[in-house]
């Protein structure tokens, strides 16, 4: 437990992907099976455990600590697991500290009534750091920002297996992944992944700049709309169906209306959308259906889910990924025609003969649910990851708004001496600024130095790491879209805002007003 607790601390406190990677890699290298496999599962959300309710943890502590002191401590610390980890009294003769695998296997084997006793015994045997890790693990609160991508890169660094290969087999295996580690370290064979409902790493596109077109021949490419939904992968084996997010998360359970209509033998790549009669109604509607623990019938009827398919990876057990795009597309169209599933359709190709044709398409309002175009080489195989030169995404021009800087917060890591997170606002009816978003990139290092200096010289208030500044600097903000939001005072939430220009020249009074911004909201 100690090594796992130290890893957690390292991941929580360490800013920056590379440093996190080094931590993870070192942990995987130095920790024996099966602990490391369980850690991998726990960190990436692939562990199913009988979890303990916070009330049960409180009860355990209440048996050992004065309630008044506990109350004050909890008020001060603010986090239940942390308070309990710190306040848990040390016992005179602690039992041997359990290893991570032991904790997980015992929990999996235990009857519900035995869980409190187990947890109390472990807490007695551990120090504050491991106690915290244990409590986070058993209460299901282990969120430390380890993506599947980060984990697979760390695994790849154990030996000579490339990350795509790790990903390819990982999802077919179950914790504690001993075969995966053996393979990653070159001690074991590549695990067999056929016959399983396995997620395959998707192929990703590069953003394209206007000046890159000169070097590309339009005849080599196919164009599709870039749909404003969620990229998903559908794996069908008869009536067994699973739907994965881009990162391999199982997102199917939230969309039973779609899943129950599906069957077949294929692995498909496409966009999850919502809307009546296979007509997409916008990302904000889709968002309503995401991140819900239970499926809401009314929402499901109001926003029926469907999938717009644009690629096929497997048909039956045949791996189509080595085929060129055009050939796969043909197989896909035939498959969709043959199965005629009511909630799947084929993402259409856009006919064009020159790049200028496409510019017109890109700006056309005909595809309001699209956020731009995809360009795919006709001969491109389906390659996991983000290979160069095969697929491009060409986004619609972003929206721009002139906003006024309101607050600045210190950044992290390299940027921790700079005020680099900027909250900006626009003018509301009462001529007061109302915050509409937060941006932390879009500027050069030199501009950051200037912004930092401006913030320091124009601070009117401080709250911890945050400075409030006088309404004196206009920022041109680029963003991808706007949604209604109850969480923001302004009533709007921006997607992907970033600073496109610093308008040192512009008087703040001439910045945009909330009414102007609200006009961009979907009806």
């Amino acid at each position: 437990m100690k090594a796992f607790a130290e890893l957690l601390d390292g991941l929580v406190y360490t800013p920056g992907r590379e440093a996190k990677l080094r931590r993870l890699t070192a942990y995987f290298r130095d920790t024996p099976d099966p602990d490391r496999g369980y850690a991998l599962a726990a960190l990436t959300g692939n562990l199913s455990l009988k979890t303990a309710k916070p009330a049960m943890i409180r009860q355990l502590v209440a048996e050992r600590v004065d309630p008044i002191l506990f109350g004050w401590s909890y008020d001060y610390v603010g986090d239940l697991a942390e308070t309990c980890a710190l306040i848990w009294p040390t016992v005179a003769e602690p039992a041997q500290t359990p290893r991570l695998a032991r904790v997980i296997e015992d929990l999996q084997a235990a009857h519900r009534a035995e869980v409190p006793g187990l947890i109390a015994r472990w807490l007695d045997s551990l120090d504050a750091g491991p106690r915290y890790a244990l409590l986070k693990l058993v209460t299901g609160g282990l969120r430390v920002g380890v993506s599947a991508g980060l984990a697979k890169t760390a695994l790849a660094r154990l030996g000579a297996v490339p990350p795509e290969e790790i990903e390819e087999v990982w999802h077919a295996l179950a914790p504690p992944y001993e075969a995966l580690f053996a393979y990653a370290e070159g001690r074991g064979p590549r695990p067999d992944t056929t016959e399983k409902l396995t997620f395959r790493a998707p192929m990703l596109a590069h953003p394209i700049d206007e000046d890159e077109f000169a070097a590309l021949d339009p005849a080599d490419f196919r164009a599709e709309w870039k749909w404003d939904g969620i990229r998903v992968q559908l794996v069908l084996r008869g009536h067994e169906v699973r739907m994965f997010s881009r990162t391999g998360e199982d997102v199917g359970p939230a969309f039973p209306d779609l899943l129950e209509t599906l069957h077949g033998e294929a692995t498909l790549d496409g966009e999850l959308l919502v809307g009546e009669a296979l007509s997409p109604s916008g990302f904000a509607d889709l968002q309503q259906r995401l991140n819900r623990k239970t499926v809401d019938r009314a929402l499901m009827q109001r926003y029926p889910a469907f999938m717009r398919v644009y690629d096929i990876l497997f048909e039956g057990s045949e791996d189509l990924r080595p085929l060129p795009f055009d050939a796969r597309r043909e197989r896909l169209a035939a498959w969709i025609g043959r199965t005629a599933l009511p909630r799947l359709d084929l993402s259409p190709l856009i006919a064009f003969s020159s790049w200028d044709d496409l510019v017109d398409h890109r700006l056309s309002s005909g595809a309001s649910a699209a956020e731009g175009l995809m360009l795919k080489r006709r001969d491109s195989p389906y390659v996991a990851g983000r290979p160069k030169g095969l697929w491009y995404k060409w986004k619609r021009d972003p929206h721009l708004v002139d906003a006024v800087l309101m607050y600045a917060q210190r950044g992290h890591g390299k940027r921790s001496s700079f005020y680099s997170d900027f909250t900006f606002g626009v003018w509301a009816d009462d001529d007061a600024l109302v915050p509409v978003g937060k941006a932390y990139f879009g500027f050069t290092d030199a501009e950051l130095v200037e912004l930092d200096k401006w913030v320091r010289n124009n601070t009117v208030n401080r709250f911890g790491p945050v400075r409030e500044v006088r309404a004196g600097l206009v920022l041109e903000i680029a963003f991808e879209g706007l949604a209604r939001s109850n969480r923001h005072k302004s009533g709007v939430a921006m997607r992907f805002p970033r600073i496109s220009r610093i308008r040192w020249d512009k008087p703040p009074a001439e910045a945009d007003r909330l009414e102007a911004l609200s006009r961009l909201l979907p009806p």
Partner: protein
Amino acid sequence: MSQPAPADWIKVTPVGLHVVPADLHVDPVRPVARAAITHGHGDHARPGHDAVLATAETLAIMKARFADDSGRQPQAARYGEPIRLGEVEVTFMPAGHVLGSAQILFEYRGSRVVVSGDYKRRRDPTCPPFEPVACDVFITEATFGLPVFRHPDDRDEIAKLLAARDREPERAILVGAYALGKCQRVIALLREAGHDAPIYLHGAQEALCRLYESFGVALGPLRSATEATKAELAGAIVLAPPGATADRWMRRLPDPVTAVASGWMRIRQRAKQRGVELPLVISDHADWDELLQTVEDVNAPEVWVTHGREEALIHAVTLTGRRARALALVGFDEEGQ
């Protein structure tokens, strides 16, 4: 003759604790005619007093900080040697907090009161350890007066610091540590752990390190961070006051790992808020268990609590059958130096 009640001869005033029969204030917040100073931290030692009674080390620290304004008539007290002021006997005893830190025992007509200032119970290679003194009233701080504060072994924390250095040989390890006490203790602990490479200092740390060395505390090779090149600072340990770890000053360092050495680092949110990459739980104050243990050790029937989280400590002391109350003293730094 019956003993006077402590509350009748030691009073809380807006200036600080007033020992009435000696006409002396302890750690007063404004200039007074006669002050007794427990230790050199800014919320305890202030400039402008007339007569100042303190250890030689504390007097030297005040001289370094306040120069000509450090007190017109300094008088050095030795640990354990009583000084008579009228009817009051005043004895300075080690508090184990920083170099020169003292608890002060006041004895008046058989009544004994200990003002402990700030103190800790852990071993500290840079100052003599706290000595419990039996008394009728023990006056204590409560900086870490909640049961969530239990400081770990400082050797483990130093090991974390050295591990970070091994892991990140291209980066500087910047440790935020108060200039008086914490800085020198961290250096001394590093030396004990076998780290003998030069340690680099922010300008604000240098003078006090020299002062410690003049009192016989060996700190090994120290260099100025301001004069060092980026290449020299790669893989080096650099100490700076906590404020400077988020300041422009740190831009001179190669991609620093920011560490902070403080008892507050026990609380994750605290460390996260400050953007600390390497929290080191090293404190110069007693932790919760040590506060309660000290009350047991001095065996006082009554405890007065000065600054910090008084209510929890008073509650816990009361549960042991002693009387306890908060003194509404002003001017102390709740965060503890």
